[in-house]
């Protein structure tokens, strides 16, 4: 059980993010929720690739020994950059929503009703 602490951290991060996304009324907090979920998923990916007592998969002056998985690290790198891109777009839309409505409260800006 003690070995699974990183996974518990993953679950906690994702749940916090989902909580912020679903129950918070402020748009910025919703954006923070998305980024929290994203960090949770990234942590999950990188955790999957760890082997006990392993070193980074780099041969330059390496001390030798088992190496951690390189693929999850590459995938996490990709996922982080994608997260930055999504975050930039979300924040620029939030700026525009604030310009139009003068508020960030999600209940006050629902103009797209039937």
């Amino acid at each position, binding site marked *: 059980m003690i070995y699974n602490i990183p996974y518990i951290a993953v679950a906690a991060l994702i749940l916090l993010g989902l909580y912020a996304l679903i129950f918070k009324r402020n748009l910025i907090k919703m954006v923070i929720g998305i980024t929290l979920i994203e960090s949770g998923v990234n942590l999950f990916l990188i955790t999957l690739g760890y082997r006990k007592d392993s070193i980074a998969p780099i041969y330059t002056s390496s001390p030798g020994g088992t190496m951690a998985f390189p693929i999850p690290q590459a995938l996490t790198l990709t996922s982080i950059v994608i997260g930055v891109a999504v975050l930039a*777009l979300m924040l*620029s839309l939030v700026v525009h929503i604030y310009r139009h409505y003068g508020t960030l409260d999600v209940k006050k800006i629902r103009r797209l009703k039937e």
Partner: protein
Amino acid sequence: MDKRNIASVIVFTIVAIFFVISSLLIHPFGMPDESEMDDYIIENTQEETGANNGVTSVVFDYRGFDTLGEATVLFTAVAGVILIFRRLKND
């Protein structure tokens, strides 16, 4: 408004259960069951790609197309941000 809240609570609970169960059921930390694909890369990165850094060899060689996609995502975001903050009237 109450109905909406109840629905959100239900959705939250179901999704939460999914994530918690999957983080409990996956292999213990530091002891992956399968390692065929990653061992192949660790063994062959120097011969096949000439790079000492295994992660770079994955990023730019073995999964180079992903990196093209990733660069494209950044390009898309830049285009999107510039489009959103553009001037609306021609000078």
